[in-house]
């Protein structure tokens, strides 16, 4: 598997506190990769370290297979990035702001400006000063700035922040379109639902460490199976299910099975205990549940 981002033992310390703590990250090419974690988990510091905006305390970084910072210029020539919220010179127009960054890139970058503005739907506002832009427009202009590099890799820090539902949908489509073109999109977010809807792969980060990484579906489905039950006697059912994690959900129960117990064995046990089962179905595992399970487990270990 070709990796566009690879880190080994990457650490960034601020005094005694490790914002990024021994991270081994592998981002495969051609996917939308979500870097998911709560606020303050170290996502932005990780991105800043990857891009050389801040020096790592230790560890190795390879961008597009090129070691950093030794091959920094070669790697970043094919990387577009938005770090934190996209910032611009407010007194310049959108087009002029792109021209500023294009001047720092290769000669072809300036020729890409009209297409980039078109792509993000800002062609008609390109001659307006950026100080008149909404946050959503600035997010899109930030994407246009990334496109000047014709990037193999886009690194987007919380790209959905501040967007309205239509803007979020638009951004999601844009990201998926980039992936369809063969580009890799690495996006950080604390929005579980968005990562699940947008990304193919995910790494869940907490307190500077990666807790789990892999394909979204695999992570969501991993762990104990969960069933949704509707029974005539909730109290009796809970007695039978003692030892399993049981939550009341709606009028029924949500059961996370342990000890390798299957749905059929569970049903039999309930019926033998005199509990009538009117509904039994596997619950669709979501990344959110997995995330909450992981973070609550981590909190429990503290």
């Amino acid at each position: 598997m070709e990796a566009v981002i690879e880190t080994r033992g990457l650490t960034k310390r601020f005094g005694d506190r490790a914002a990024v703590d021994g991270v081994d990250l592998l981002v495969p090419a051609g996917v939308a990769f979500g870097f998911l974690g709560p606020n303050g988990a170290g996502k932005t510091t990780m991105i800043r370290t990857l891009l050389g905006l801040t020096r790592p305390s230790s560890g190795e970084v390879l961008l597009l297979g090129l070691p950093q910072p030794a091959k920094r210029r070669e790697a970043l020539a094919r990387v577009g990035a938005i770090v934190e919220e996209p910032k611009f010179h407010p007194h310049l127009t959108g087009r002029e702001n792109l021209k500023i960054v294009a001047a720092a890139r290769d000669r072809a970058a300036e020729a890409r400006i009209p297409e980039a503005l078109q792509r993000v739907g800002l062609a008609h506002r390109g001659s307006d000063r950026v100080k008149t832009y909404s946050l959503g427009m600035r997010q899109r202009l930030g994407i246009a700035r990334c496109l000047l590099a014709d990037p193999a890799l886009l690194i987007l820090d919380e790209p959905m922040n501040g967007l309205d539902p239509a803007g979020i949908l638009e951004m999601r489509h844009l990201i998926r379109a980039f992936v369809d073109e063969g580009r890799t999109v690495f996006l950080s977010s604390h929005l579980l639902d968005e990562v699940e809807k947008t990304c193919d792969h995910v790494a869940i980060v907490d307190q500077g460490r990666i807790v789990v990484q892999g394909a979204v579906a695999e992570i969501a489905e991993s762990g104990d199976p969960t069933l949704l039950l509707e029974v005539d006697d909730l109290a009796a059912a809970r007695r039978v299910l003692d030892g399993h994690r049981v939550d009341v959900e709606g009028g029924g129960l949500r059961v996370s099975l342990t000890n390798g117990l299957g749905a059929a064995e569970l049903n039999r046990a309930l019926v033998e205990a005199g509990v009538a089962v009117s509904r039994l179905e596997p619950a669709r595992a979501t990344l959110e549940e997995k995330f909450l399970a992981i973070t609550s487990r981590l909190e429990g270990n503290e």
Partner: protein
Amino acid sequence: MRLVGAEVLKLVRRRGLMAWSLLLTVGSVLVAEIVLVALHAANSAKHDPAGGAANLEHLVFLLSGLGNVAAIIIGATAGTQDVGNGVFRDLVVTGRKRSTLFNVRVVGALAVFLPMLALGFAVAIGGSFLLAGGLPLPTGADIGRYLAYTVALTAIDVILAVGLAAFTSSRVVVGVLIAWNAIVSHLLIAIGSLGGSRKLIDVAAAEHFAPRHAIDNQLAMSSVTAVLTLVVWAVIFLRAGRWWTNRTDA
């Protein structure tokens, strides 16, 4: 060159900065000439014509003093605008060296400032000839020295402002450099007990290029010493600014 062009674009699109800088350079000379013409027209017995060598000297000192403020403002803006607007990190992630991004600020600021200074100087020279009446005209040597003095005094401050701006805000840069040029440096130059060490003051070195009769307390030094002093100041500030730009997080 494309980076320099981008730097110039960022500066010239600042309407307020351009308006004030033009006012301080070209505008100040024009206003002074208009006042001199008006005074002469109102009372030619009391007020000489507006041109001639003596008036050129006054206009050059006006241009140098106010042009110096424009130089500092332009340098400070060039040195702080990328970081201040949060755009510096976007330039860094293009893979460009931070030192390159720092260096083009200096070139860009000079490219914006020097044409304004040249225009202001041209207006002063033009006025000194066209409005001379019967007054003595400035010599070529005078004009050469005035030009060297004006450029030395102002261009060095563009460089110092860009270098200093790597460390702090544009307001602090403007305040510190104006205070240095207008007050502190002249106090130091006036302290005779400092002896030859006063030649190390950039303002003293720049004033070396002014005609000898024009400056009070002008220190005697060779042109080589004056140029070396200015170069050392420029190198120190540029190196410090570049070092800090390379060192800090973007």
